[in-house]
């Protein structure tokens, strides 16, 4: 894969569009500071894998939220975040299929719409349960909802 988003293109873009002075890049490219070079040269052009990594990180944050929080509503929000991370993967793969020959591939986008529908239904039902729970038990903390615990 050719590094399209490599240093020179990025530098030209910044100089042309944002009027960044050229001295700024000399300062960045001093031998002591080659982090900039590493970031923009080491194949960091946003391709499919970058989108998948963003989706994976969003999913992991959602998992951590579900496992650590006590508030039921925040747990529901974390579940929405996980569903959304899956949606990002669907859309990224849809674009990848379009770019590898199947120019009209929209199956991933159609599936994403169904995921959004199911997420909306799940939020409505879940929040109804939360309201009923609060009315009966006067709490929304998951560790205080222990009727089934022996």
């Amino acid at each position, binding site marked *: *894969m050719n590094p*399209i*988003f490599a240093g020179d*293109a990025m530098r030209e*873009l910044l100089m042309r569009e944002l009027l960044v002075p050229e001295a700024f890049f000399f300062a960045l490219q001093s031998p002591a500071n080659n982090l900039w070079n590493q970031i923009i040269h080491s194949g960091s*052009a*946003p391709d499919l*894998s*970058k*989108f*998948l*990594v*963003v989706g994976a*990180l*969003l999913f*992991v*944050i*959602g*998992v*951590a*939220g579900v*496992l*650590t*929080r006590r*508030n039921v*509503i*925040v747990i*529901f*929000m974390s579940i*929405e*975040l996980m569903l*959304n991370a899956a949606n*990002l993967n669907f*859309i990224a793969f*849809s*674009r990848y299929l379009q*770019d*590898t*020959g199947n*120019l*009209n591939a*929209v*199956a991933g*986008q159609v599936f994403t*719409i*169904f995921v959004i529908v*199911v*997420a*909306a*239904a*799940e*939020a409505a*039902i879940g*929040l*109804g349960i*939360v*309201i009923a729970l*609060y*009315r009966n038990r006067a709490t*929304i903390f998951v560790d205080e909802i222990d009727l089934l615990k022996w």
Partner: protein
Amino acid sequence: MTLTGWEAVFFWIFSSAALIAALLMVMARSAVHAALFLISSLVSVAALFVLLGAEFVAGVQVLVYVGGVMVLFLFVIMLVNVGAEERGSERLFNGQAQTIAAIVFSLLLMVGLIYSINQGFRGLAERDSTRLAEVAERRAAMSERLPLGATGSAKISRDTEQIGASLYRFAALPFEIASVVLLVAIVGAVLLARTRKQEAASGDVDPEGTT
């Protein structure tokens, strides 16, 4: 599919915004703040959808998630929230051992996911490296042929048209099932959220016989 130029810059901006907002959502003390952080995360992901050429899904995301689901969340927070978390009298997270175990598990999951994504993507890129280059030309030619918008500065995407066509042709049955699912969800939410007084007024039989 490699984003270049401004698209790449916007990818980094919006993906980092989505991740930071998601982290702040998980750690927010107030549930209302968590909802607002989730809204900003969802809007950033919608911007990523636009970068990927899925304009219709981005619009649906903003309208349904941000406009519908999150407003529902905010209403329920208003009805339910006790404010004990905000005052600091209630713990935010589970017990310490449980939280540490959960974070370790999440880190392991993250390492595994990123490793497997990179491994799998390497094989995929090897397989498709020639194909990507030749299809890129065809895609560029196809987007050249798209009609100009009214202002003349942008082209009209065929994304929405294609999704509509495949929703009504190839995904017609799932589409109908989704509408039934939404109907059941509406009825179920109304049933679950009724008060005792409303239940009594509707003439239903109370299983506990208290009315």
